[in-house]
């Protein structure tokens, strides 16, 4: 967080009483907040009135749904590493923030959610638009506050920012009753924080631990790095790359870790886990040393836990003590900041004695089973569309957001990221509707970057209203819509595990035979909804492509357009995301075809 700037309260003179709302916003400004995604309502009017007095310092972006605002704040946070701030009114406004808050909790994103609340005299009376949002949000926040005294506002906002952005980052909620927003006091922006129970993990790895890790590396013959979102949160991608340069250890990445190591390098094993590469999963299975960095052994990565990395000595470097030994027992656990650990390690580490055989093996695996699709297919395969998008945008500063489902996994497989914080995807919670609002939040933070939401038709529709935000707030994001008129990932599971019985996974009319899986097996001819018309209704530019030879021209038009642009790509729904390790299984059950 930026150092607190010398600022004067809105009413100019010091030692003058100002409102709780003004104190809250001033505290945000003092901590470097420059963008807020906020949807007003009865109980948050004073906060919005206050925001107008800070117009020169805080950009307020008005989403079209509080959930969109929450995900936009996440897009801002994920792409910058800074705090994302969203705001909503009491009751329904606040409950609409719960999904982005829960999402930020699982993906460890620094998010501050501020909600208006009914006045303290009527709290607990089932007042209009009252929900006990702190009670609701407890289990999905890192911390939470209900402020009942205006004297606490400055301290609480400061504490909330501190808790959200330090240690393992996460979402913090501040519930601010309307009468507290309106009450006035002389603010004390330096009031001491009262967080006796907040143990900021500043532990540094001991020389013994670093020596132990270095000697494990030295003695390894088949080492693998398993890198996750924690490496990005710790801003340690550079240190990781240095470790790889020094040791030649290949890197497998989690969905949250994509970009931490360049996907086009020979030592990148790409995505690990259920829909990860064959070679990443094989390498972990065969590894004799697994160096887990900023990860939590999620079930989508491990499959059957006892079989995961069964031959390997496991080293777990993790800032959150509760992640150590939670799922998988570590042989060497280093409970410290991964960036500091890597810095220390890089000063002494020596490469393993001989990795030639391991490198040969990995190159052979990579050659045998690359991510692939049927290049000769006559129509547009979703994988092909992503592959072409990557070719056309690889040399630009491009940020990719996604929804959740098949298109998300294909994006992870085929869009070869080179940098951290260029991949915005809902990993832990898996929230459909994440992509478009996350993209607009990233665009607000990076006006010069090309921001593309690769989305599915199911996911896009869940927060389609944010097209209005993009237009009205002048945020020209692009949507590459891989439109198969189905909930493709569920269809895939129906095909694999439920005898292809279609159960509410077709997104067209119930009259269509396809709704019961009795269509003719080709891409539906009647398109619904008409996404091009929808986009144009929001004053976006839009185009639909169905033929393979139109795709590249369509992608170019989308990329070059100065306006928000939707490219509706008609793709078949029969494609499955492969490879696939079914839930709870092992690399031995990996499905290739």
């Amino acid at each position, binding site marked *: 967080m930026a150092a607190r700037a010398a600022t004067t309260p809105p009413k100019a003179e010091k030692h003058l009483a100002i409102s709780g709302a003004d104190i809250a916003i001033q505290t945000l400004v003092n901590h470097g907040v420059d963008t807020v995604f906020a949807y007003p309502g009865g109980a948050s009017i004073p906060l919005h009135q206050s925001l107008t007095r800070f117009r020169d310092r805080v950009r307020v972006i008005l989403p079209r749904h509080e959930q969109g605002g929450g995900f936009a704040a996440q897009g801002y946070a994920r792409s910058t590493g800074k705090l994302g701030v969203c705001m909503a009114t009491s009751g329904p406004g606040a409950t609409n923030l719960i999904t982005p808050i829960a999402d930020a909790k699982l993906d460890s994103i620094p998010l501050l959610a501020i909600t208006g609340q009914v006045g303290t005299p009527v709290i607990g009376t089932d007042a209009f638009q009252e929900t006990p949002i*702190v009670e609701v949000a*407890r289990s999905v926040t890192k911390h939470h506050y209900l402020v009942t005294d205006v004297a606490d506002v400055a301290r609480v906002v400061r504490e909330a920012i501190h*808790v959200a952005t330090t240690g393992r980052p996460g979402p913090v909620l501040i519930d601010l009753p309307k009468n507290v927003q309106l009450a006035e006091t002389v603010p004390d922006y330096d009031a001491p924080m009262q967080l*006796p*129970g907040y*143990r900021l993990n500043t532990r540094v790895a001991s020389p013994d631990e670093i020596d132990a890790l270095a000697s494990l590396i030295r003695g390894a013959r088949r080492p693998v790095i398993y890198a996750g979102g924690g490496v990005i949160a710790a801003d340690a991608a550079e240190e990781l790359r240095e470790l790889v340069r020094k040791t030649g250890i290949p890197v497998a990445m989690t969905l949250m870790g994509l970009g931490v190591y360049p996907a086009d390098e020979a030592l990148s094993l790409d995505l690990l886990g259920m829909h990860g590469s064959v070679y990443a999963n094989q390498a972990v299975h065969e590894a004799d040393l697994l160096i887990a960095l900023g990860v939590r052994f999620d079930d989508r990565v491990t499959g059957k836990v006892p079989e995961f990395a069964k031959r390997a000595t496991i080293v777990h470097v993790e800032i*959150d003590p*509760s992640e150590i030994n939670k799922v998988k027992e570590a042989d060497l656990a280093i409970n410290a900041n991964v960036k500091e650990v890597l810095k220390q390690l890089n000063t002494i580490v020596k490469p393993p004695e001989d990795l030639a055989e391991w490198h040969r093996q990995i190159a052979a695996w990579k050659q045998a089973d690359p991510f692939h699709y049927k290049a000769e297919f006559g129509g547009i395969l979703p994988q092909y569309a992503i592959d072409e998008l990557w070719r056309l945008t690889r040399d630009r500063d491009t940020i990719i957001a996604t929804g959740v489902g098949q298109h998300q996994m294909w994006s992870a497989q085929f869009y070869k990221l080179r940098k951290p914080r260029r991949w915005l995807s809902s990993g832990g919670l898996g929230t459909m509707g994440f992509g478009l609002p996350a993209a607009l939040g990233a665009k607000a933070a990076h006006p010069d970057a090309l921001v593309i939401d690769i989305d599915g038709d199911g996911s896009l529709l869940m927060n389609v209203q944010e097209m209005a935000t993009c237009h009205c707030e002048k945020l020209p994001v692009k949507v590459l819509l891989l439109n198969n008129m189905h909930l493709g990932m569920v269809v895939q599971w129906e095909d694999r595990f439920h005898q292809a019985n279609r159960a509410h996974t077709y997104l067209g009319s119930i009259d269509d035979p396809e709704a019961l899986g009795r269509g003719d097996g080709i891409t539906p001819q009647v398109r619904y909804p008409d996404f091009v018309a929808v986009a144009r209704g929001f004053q976006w530019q839009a185009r639909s492509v169905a033929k393979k030879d139109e795709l590249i021209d369509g992608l170019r038009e989308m990329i070059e357009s100065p306006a928000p642009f939707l490219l509706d790509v008609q793709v078949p729904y029969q494609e499955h995301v492969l490879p696939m390790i079914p839930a709870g299984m092992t690399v031995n059950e990996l499905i290739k075809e």
Partner: protein
Amino acid sequence: MRHVLSALVHNVPGVLSHIAGMLASRGYNIESLAVGETEDAQLSRMTFVVVGDDRVLEQVRKQLEKVVTVVQVDDISSQDHVERDLMLLKVAAPPGKRSEVRELIEIFRGRIVDVAPEMVMIEISGQERKIEAFIEMMRPFGIIELARTGRIAMVRGQKTIGQESKPAPK
């Protein structure tokens, strides 16, 4: 394995609900939970009896420590400590049975705190096993009502829980 955990928590509204909710949502088996103020008005003490193996216990502890309002967690079952439970119970004691009831109360070092024509209210404290044994002795007379505090515990000797990590005075 049965463990007694003692946690100092920041005395703010909702802290009990937060901790109880966290334990429930992660599926931990809590046998007893007692909470009350301490000598420091800013802090409360929560005493948990948790059943589980070492791995479960390690997770419970770490998850408790992760809660921002939890200042310190100690597993005191591994140390020399005193554990107490307080119970109030009403037992049917018509005039003919009263002296028999009184005798048992004396053996268990309980106290009669209220008397009515057909019953007595008894206060008794001690270790869980003693309390359980007393309940069994009273059952034949007819237990009318029973309330227990849950376990509280403290380490013997000079050492106090959390003495290093109290918030610095302003």
